[in-house]
């Protein structure tokens, strides 16, 4: 086990290196020198020079111990991403945004998971019936409606017109108050795709020989479903669940934008608006690191869920 984990950790080094290389190419080589943009329209050459000095944009790109290339790696590996365009430390901004983002995405994620897994078990049980067809139709229709429409119409009807929820975030509200509607909208929008995925997983399991055996020896459908099918369907479920966790930290770009929730999604939207490469760079790197870590956790989880998987 320990050797396996160590070996997997070694494998992550080239990935992390790749991510850093990619962000360097994107934001430094392609993105270019943005000091003139930061300084604004009426800046003097001295101000521009100062900004270039501060962000290290006047240093050589490669071929020096103090080059931008080396500094890019150094700042990422020590998690100090410097200051964003409004002079605040990027890492502080990110720390501040994690809380509201998680308050939004965690209930949303578990809501979608619980509802779609239990519905998929039910649908797999009544497969071929009207209910099954209805579920598939609703799923495909739900997947076809753009996410933005869910949000806008949801916000308009539930918050603005009927006044059931607050329209926007304001500091006086409790967390439960301001995340309630976004969470509901997120669940409504997410169920289509997820239910369809889990339905396929369950139906694949239902066709296996062991299910026929279980039915043949006279087990009740409920027992087959919960004791046999659900257990065997755990592998794809675990993969999806664990790999979705890093995305929870990112928050929801669109939901946070519409409801004004000050999370990481909102931070990203702001950064896009002001072309703040520093924030986007940091977010890209941090989310990639989280993804790599949770990928490792998925592989370890496999060995608990499926004894056939051995970690040699």
């Amino acid at each position, binding site marked *: 086990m320990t050797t396996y984990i160590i070996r997997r950790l070694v494998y992550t080094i*080239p990935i992390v290196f*790749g991510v850093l290389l990619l962000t360097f190419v*994107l934001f430094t080589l392609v993105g270019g020198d943005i000091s003139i943009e930061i300084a604004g329209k009426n800046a003097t050459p001295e101000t521009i020079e100062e900004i270039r000095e501060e962000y290290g944009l006047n240093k050589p790109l490669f071929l020096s111990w103090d080059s931008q290339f080396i500094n890019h790696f150094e700042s990422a590996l020590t998690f100090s991403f410097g200051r964003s365009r409004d002079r605040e430390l990027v890492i502080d901004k990110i720390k501040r945004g994690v809380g509201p983002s998680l308050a939004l995405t965690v209930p949303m994620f578990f809501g979608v998971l619980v509802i779609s897994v239990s519905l998929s078990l039910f649908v797999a049980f009544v497969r071929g019936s009207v209910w099954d067809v209805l579920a598939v139709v609703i799923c*495909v229709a739900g997947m076809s409606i753009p996410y*933005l429409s869910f949000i806008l119409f949801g916000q308009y009807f539930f918050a603005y017109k009927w006044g059931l929820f607050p329209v926007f975030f304001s500091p006086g509200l409790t967390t439960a108050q301001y995340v309630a509607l976004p969470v509901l909208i997120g669940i409504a929008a997410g169920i289509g795709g997820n239910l369809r995925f889990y339905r396929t997983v369950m139906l694949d399991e239902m066709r296996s020989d062991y299910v026929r055996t279980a039915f043949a020896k006279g087990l009740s459908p409920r027992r087959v479903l919960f004791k046999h099918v659900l257990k065997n369907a755990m592998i794809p479920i675990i993969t999806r669940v664990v790999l979705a966790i890093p995305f929870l930290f990112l928050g929801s770009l669109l939901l946070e934008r519409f409801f004004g929730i000050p999370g990481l999604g909102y931070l990203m939207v702001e950064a896009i608006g002001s072309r703040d490469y520093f924030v986007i760079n940091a977010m890209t790197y941090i989310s990639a690191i989280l993804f790599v870590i949770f990928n490792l956790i998925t592989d370890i989880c496999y060995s608990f869920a499926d004894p056939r998987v051995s970690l040699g």
Partner: protein
Amino acid sequence: MGESEETICVSKQPKGRSLWADGIRRLRRRKLAMISFVIIVAYFSLAGFIYVAELLDWEVSPTLWAKQTGDSYQPPSSENIFGTDIFGQSVFRKTLYGTKISMTVALCASFISIFIGVPLGAIAGFFRGFVDEIIVWVYSTLSSIPYILLILAFAIVLRDKTLFGYKLTGITAVYLAIGLTSWVGICRLIRGEVIKHKEREYVLAARSYGCSERRIIFRHLIPNVFHLVIIDFSLRFVAFIHAEVILSFLGLGEANRPSWGAMINDARIELSRGVWWQMAAATVAIFFISLTLNIFGDALRDSLDPKLRIQ
């Protein structure tokens, strides 16, 4: 007697059907899929028609989207069936014009990711070894960054940059960003299939009569796995359309011409005044193309490759 029966049997033996002919035959039996196909073709024809009309300066409804057809914020009526926006432009015409933007982005993004993903996947699967490791490293790196963040990072950096003397404005940056980030899935799929196909007899046969490796990859292996590309992209196309909408909405898309994403962005402020028609028009337009592509893509997958699972 016995002899004649045998000859009848032989003459009755059906002609062999290719994978494609068989797939199309099965697809034709599905009414819903065929209806969807007609609607998809209609969307594409509309987009193509707008291109031709713009090129030849025809004064038809979608190319005249900028013309004022009524007062500001008129609700749907017989004159403007989807009402008008803030400038009094017809929402219906804007929706039609948005088709062109969405279809162009999704199609170009698909072509870019196929042109990158398919050859890379085939080369990785065929040669294995060091080449394979490099290609796998590249796509593992890309896939460890959340998709939406990756597209955003590409879109924001590519926007207004000059590439080979050509300025990347509006939708060019959008489809480049989507295309350059979306080839990972297809590359992985093709690599896996090629690894399996490499051991088959037809590849051995091709080798034995002296085909070059390039010929084996591009003339034998890729055509034999290409149906997977078609299936994959019929479903991925929907994601591209939705990505374009989100990018346009975030202000990274086409700025000067109407697109569905920009219409939804306008609607953000309008909805609170009770102006719902622009929002509804864009939603309906996106809904139908997504729905038909989803239905058609599923049917296509079942017809061409019943064993393939949903990813």
